[in-house]
């Protein structure tokens, strides 16, 4: 499967896909923009209604499980809600951006199922934001000496509570949801965001 020969030349593709004429792409892009700029709930409800059944269908094909397909719907649309401001409409259609958000969530879920890794590296592979060229940071060892507590303190309270509960008090996500009186899905998404932030803060722990 992965043993193809490398192609020697990189020939640009000429073939183009054509969207169906009745595609509401303008409406979708406008709605995404409204979510990004105004946290517009009506616009988000529209995106939710348009995308959730399609994401669910995609998830069922991918995972062969209704529950996991629903998890993909939740992961993807939570990210859309929280990351809409990262969408740059010069770069492509709203549907393409939402596809990449869904593909990333699906990749992280598959990796978690296959190797039990919760490192959420999809954004390292497919960054949702283009990185600016900034000055190089000297790699420094002192990062490693800092206590993880220092990083934890930088997290928003809600995410910190979840990380503490799961990693320091050994609670299951379900127990924690009950204690904090929030849905399990919210525990999961807070944990994911927190780990993402921690990894970014800690960078490469070179060992």
């Amino acid at each position, binding site marked *: 499967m*992965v043993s193809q020969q490398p192609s020697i030349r990189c020939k640009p593709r000429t073939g183009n896909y054509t969207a169906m004429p009745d595609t509401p792409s303008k409406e979708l892009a406008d709605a995404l923009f409204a979510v990004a700029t105004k946290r517009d709930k009506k616009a988000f409800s529209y995106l939710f209604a348009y995308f959730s059944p399609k994401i669910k269908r995609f998830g069922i094909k991918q995972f062969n499980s209704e529950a996991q397909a629903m998890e993909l719907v939740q992961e993807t649309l939570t990210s859309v809600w929280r990351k809409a401001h990262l969408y740059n409409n010069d770069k*492509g259609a709203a549907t393409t951006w939402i596809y990449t958000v869904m593909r990333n969530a699906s990749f992280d879920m598959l990796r978690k199922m296959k190797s039990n890794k919760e490192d959420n590296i999809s954004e390292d592979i497919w960054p949702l934001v283009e990185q600016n060229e900034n000055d*190089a940071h000297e790699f420094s060892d002192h990062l490693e000496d800092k206590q993880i507590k220092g990083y934890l303190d930088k997290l928003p309270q809600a995410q910190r509570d979840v990380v503490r509960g799961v990693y320091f008090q050994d609670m299951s996500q379900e127990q924690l949801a009950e204690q904090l009186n929030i849905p399990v899905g919210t525990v999961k998404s807070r944990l994911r965001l927190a780990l993402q932030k921690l990894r970014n803060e800690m960078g490469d722990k070179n060992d």
Partner: protein
Amino acid sequence: MIKHHPTDALLTQYCNGTLPASLSVAVSIHIDMCSCCRDKVEAIEASNASEVFINNQEDFSEQIDLEDAGLLESIMLDDGIDEVYEVKKQEVSVNEQSYELPRALSRIAHSKFMQMGKLSRSRIALDDGALRSSLLHIAAGGEIPEHTHTGFELTLLLAGEFSDESGDYVAGDFMLLDGQHQHTPVTENGCLCYTVVSSALHFNKGLSKLLNPIGNLIY
């Protein structure tokens, strides 16, 4: 100029999210260096998106059920947004040379470099089943003895140059070799590569056969 690229089939798997993590990282690094493959990836993603979200003729009339409506509310309950963050550049020093790590690798841990003569290797903490990924450094004038692979070997040149029986390679070149290929990479001025192998190397010439037990260590 970059002459060796991932195949279209590999790029498609990459876009679909079905390529193993360590190879996905390699493609990600390559497309940051190769605008031609980047354009291809964008085209595949756009066509995947329209397949799933637009030209999809399946019946979605079932719409959202009550459970989903609860989901909609619970998503919007949280008003936070994800901040834009910059991935900090990371440098590695090996054999008195300094390299800036590619963006895709800067938040993924790697071990200290182990040195054997002119070869130094650091394992990437990707934990990707049978696939092992590493940073491999060959110091100036160094070479890897002739070897074959029982599985496959991916070499992505990150910095510097090397050459083998089939030619010269520059930073960004993406080479995927399977078990039928043998090669002996040599570098004049030193190079840093990202490598992924699916199984141990097999050295097949003269004295370097003695290296077989440490094939595991090199890659």
